[in-house]
């Protein structure tokens, strides 16, 4: 499962698909997940606050392909923060759709008081709850997590989801989480840093 997918499931770890995380941070976390996927695919890199395309070949995943095309199509925008804000706007629906296509989630439209709200409900509760459980067990083991898992853990910490994931874990797990981000490869470490900064900026502005 790709980074943004797992982040989505961690952030909506609930039988009715309700968000565990406020919308601003959810969107930014998903956006960072999408950019992170492209970094891991070797298509882009992040340094000095800018995104640079390294390889224009489309990745296998349709959404990752779309995001890469967007990056290639608008070379005048390079700032990581711009792309985080832009991808955050559609993060929930684009990643939600990807999970729906994969059969993990089911679209559910509900009408309440003139407003139609769209949510993504888990098809199999255990499968949807798995990423959070997996992250928790990862931190209970002494060996360091793989790079994709470390990135996911970094995004969980950057968006403020740590307590949701580590609710039952001991201080050792919290300590290991603190070591994970500094050990990330430089582009991913910077991506996590910008995500944390963007989430903090959203809190400071007082926007939901």
């Amino acid at each position, binding site marked *: 499962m790709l980074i943004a997918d797992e982040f989505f499931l961690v952030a909506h770890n609930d039988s009715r698909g309700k*968000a*565990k*995380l*406020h919308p*601003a*941070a959810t969107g930014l976390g998903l956006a960072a997940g999408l950019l992170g996927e492209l970094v891991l695919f070797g298509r882009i890199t992040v340094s*000095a*606050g800018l995104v*640079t*395309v390294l390889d224009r070949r489309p990745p296998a995943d349709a959404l990752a392909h779309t995001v890469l095309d*967007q990056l290639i*199509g*608008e*070379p*005048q*925008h*390079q700032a990581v923060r*711009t*792309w985080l*804000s*832009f991808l955050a*706007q559609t993060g929930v629906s684009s990643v939600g759709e990807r999970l729906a296509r994969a059969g993990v989630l089911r679209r559910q439209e509900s009408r309440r008081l003139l407003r139609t709200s769209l949510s993504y409900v888990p098809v199999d509760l255990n499968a949807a709850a798995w990423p959070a459980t997996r992250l928790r067990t990862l931190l209970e083991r002494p060996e360091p997590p793989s790079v994709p898992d470390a990135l996911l853990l970094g995004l969980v910490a*950057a*968006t*403020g*989801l740590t*307590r*949701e994931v580590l609710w039952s874990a001991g201080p050792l797990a919290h*300590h290991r989480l*603190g*070591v994970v981000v*500094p*050990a990330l490869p430089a582009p991913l470490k*910077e991506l996590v*840093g*910008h*995500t*944390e*900064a963007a*989430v*903090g*900026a*959203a*809190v*400071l*502005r*007082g926007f*939901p």
Partner: protein
Amino acid sequence: MPPAATVDRPSNVSDSLARGRLGVPSVIFFVLSAAAPLTVVAGVVTTGYAVTGVTGIPLAFLVVAAVLALFSVGYVAMARRLTNAGAFYAYVARGLGRPAGVGAAWVALIAYNALQVGLYGAIGAAAEPVLQQIFGGSPAWWVVALVAWALVAILGLLRVDVNGMVLAVLLVAEILVILVFDVAQVSHPAGGSVSFATLSPDNLLVPGVGAILVLATTGFTGFESAVVFSEESKDPKRTVPMATYLSVAIIAALYAFSAWTMTVATGPARIVDASREQSTALIFNLAGAHLGDTAVTIGQALFLTSLLAAMISFHNTTARYAFALGRERVLPALFGQTSPRTGAPRVASLAQSLLGLVVIVLYAVAGWDPLVQLFFWGGTGGGFGVLLLIATTSVAVIAFFARTRTGETLWRRAIAPGLAAIALTAVIVVAVDNFAILLGVAPDSPLRWAIPAVYPVAALLGLLWGLVLRGSRPDVYARIGLGAESAVAEAPLVTPEPAPAGVEAAR
């Protein structure tokens, strides 16, 4: 990808990010909604007349507005080049060095907390007529204050920033009520003729002038927040400066006019005595005589909602300040945590609420006067702290532009902030001299020195703490002043200083 290729071509990214962008009116609304005009007009101005006994308050608003407009010239110019631009200490950290920034941050924390907690002192007086009307009786002030406190504490945690639309409606209603009251006051002058006596400059040549200048500054608190919306505004180069200047102008015009019309209605010679007798009820009593009971009831209800809105807004501001400092690790990292579901700065909000509770209980148990000793002292004490911050920031602006090569004009980078710094320093000197008058205590009261001394002590301790951080925790030192952006401090934002980029795993 050469940056030269930036011709104006259609961009999905720009378009979709521009959709929610704010124009000048929206930013002004954000700024003014924190200002809570009726709180200032009905509460601060009347209590100000009563405590200081100085009649130059209308003029003081205009003088302070002129100084703040001058200050804003350099302030908005520097804001564009700064991360975390909403907080004065960020300017100080960039302009005068990080240790000074920590000192300014501590001063800011105290000042904003004083302003917020002070508001609990007025809520009892504001609620009394409303409760009287509904229930035919009213409990002790601290009961009302505790109810308001609980409301603020819960809303702060849920981060229900009172809905923007509700705030806008309340704000417009408040301003309308104030203007209607003002017109009634002007059209029914005491003694039959409108007196301009309180607008004469010699009202500012009296011993208490420093006191009313601080009081006026309190009324402007919040004008600095327009710069927060730099990234969200349609055109940061135009929107933010326009919104800042217009906010200052609107606040100045409204408060000066209202403070003046009060003196017209009572007669310049009677305003101090009338304020002492009637306190926060003064403008409602004046309105009642000419406009009837309905207008008064509406005004009193809006005074209550205005205070509540101000409490919530200052609570959130203060909590965000502590949150930003927590993110920098200047305060414990705990303060930088948010509640996942709401995004509220949970620990910072709880800490602010705890302080409010302690102060309310303390005043209730000790039996101190809530209106003068909590509301007015909190408001003016906090306002004095904000004044110190603004003055320091104006110096920081000069220092910043002296070191940074920019295309700004000499007026923006040196002359305007320089004049503002001189004027603000003069105001501070007079204010310290007049502090006994500001508080309404005897000239030999220890409080007269104790309250203003809080700030230099805090600034000094903060400065020392900043120096300690430089020696012992360079990773934290590098983050000072960056607020939420400190998360990327290890990367390129760090200016060339002896800040090793080394990252220790365990903090």
